[in-house]
């Protein structure tokens, strides 16, 4: 069967098995096809049951992190246009980058050119939202009264500074003059604790100066590291760290 009849896509749609373009086209079709919309709703509810069958008990620290996060995340207003739409993302990002830059300069002298790194994601809207959340969090870490910094030469003439706020349990990494990673690779950040490396996200390979919010909570980690990894990053480091910075006490 090689039909392209959109009616047959309800299952694939409910399972998120459609690539983006086909998903968008199907959603347009849905708005004009009541029976399809009804079937899609039922099949999505069925897919959710597959999800309900997989319960993994989250670590207690995750609950604390999430409950703490939501105290600083503003909720959407009901109805109306999305206040965090992509149209507003740029000016806001620019304003915050300057703010972040100023704070970095105050926090760690002699660092310049810090540029806010937009995280790449396929969905521009999510991008904007996440960037805003991260920018807010970076600003909050840098401005927090217990922010502590440590600066180190990373070799190759680049300088890295880590800013940690114990009260927020988050860390920000500011780097200047970092050479671009060779051969399509990426720099990946890590939390290190007792020899265990935990991914803290990727850096933007296109920038030599950047300010990055380490992904996830510091959660007692003793140091942060930077490694060179294949595109997309790795679950565990595949190379020796280029740099390890102890978190300031």
């Amino acid at each position, binding site marked *: 069967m090689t039909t392209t009849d959109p009616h047959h896509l309800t299952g*694939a749609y409910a399972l*998120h098995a459609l690539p983006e373009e086909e998903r968008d086209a199907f959603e347009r079709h849905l708005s004009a096809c009541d029976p399809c919309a009804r*079937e899609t709703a039922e099949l999505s509810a069925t897919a959710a049951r597959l999800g309900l069958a997989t319960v993994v*008990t989250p670590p207690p620290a995750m609950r604390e992190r999430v409950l703490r996060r939501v105290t600083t995340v503003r909720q959407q207003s009901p109805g109306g246009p999305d206040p965090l739409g992509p149209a507003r993302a740029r000016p806001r990002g620019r304003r915050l980058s300057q703010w972040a830059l100023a704070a970095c300069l105050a926090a760690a002298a002699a660092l310049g050119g810090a540029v806010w790194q937009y995280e790449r994601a396929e969905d521009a809207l999510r991008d904007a939202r996440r960037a805003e959340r991260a920018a807010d969090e970076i600003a909050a870490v840098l401005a927090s009264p217990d922010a502590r910094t440590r600066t180190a030469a990373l070799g190759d003439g680049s300088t890295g500074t880590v800013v940690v706020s114990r009260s927020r349990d988050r860390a920000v990494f500011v780097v200047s003059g970092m050479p671009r990673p060779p051969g399509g690779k990426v720099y990946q950040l890590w939390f290190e604790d007792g020899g265990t490396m935990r991914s803290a996200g990727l850096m933007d390979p296109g920038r030599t100066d950047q300010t990055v919010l380490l992904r996830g909570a510091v959660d007692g980690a003793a140091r942060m590291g930077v490694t060179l990894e294949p595109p997309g990053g790795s679950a565990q480091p595949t190379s020796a760290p280029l740099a390890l910075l102890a978190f300031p006490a």
Partner: protein
Amino acid sequence: MREAVHIGRNPSSEPDLQELVGRVALGDEEAFAAVYDVVAGPVLGVARAVLRDQAQSEEVAQEVLVEVWRTAPRFRADRGTAINWILTLAHRRAVDRVRSVEAAAARDHKAALLDRTPEFDEVTEQVEARLEREQVRRCLRTLTEIQRQAVTLAYYRGLTYRQTAEALTLPLGTVKTRLRDGLIRLRDCLGVTA
């Protein structure tokens, strides 16, 4: 884990979660903590099934839970139940993550995915929702082999229908149809209404 996790099976507990989400929409942090306690396990379960990496799964689960808080005011109860909304969001975000990682990596990990279709028991290893799981397992058995494999690969591994077709060496049209009729059979077996 509270009994309310069995929301899909036990409709009497459903109003609890709906009501809680309604309070979350008004900025009630206590209500959000209660929602967290009900849904965090399945949300992490979905992320873990698709992503398999514990750290990434926790990261995605946290993003989803914060998104639940953030977007609760826009939740429309007339369009479906709260648990469906949350688990649909969780699956979508987990799939987004696995695909963006794949795309960024330009890595063909098909080989790893394709060498065999995972069994339901493998993809849902650390499971606590026993009743729900038993019911889903029983209903998956009512599917044809191809329906079951296609639905399992698409949902629990986050494959697109194209990848599913390659994995099962089936024509694209067949996979689309099997995903649909497989889910319809599951829907009827589980007694799901939208």
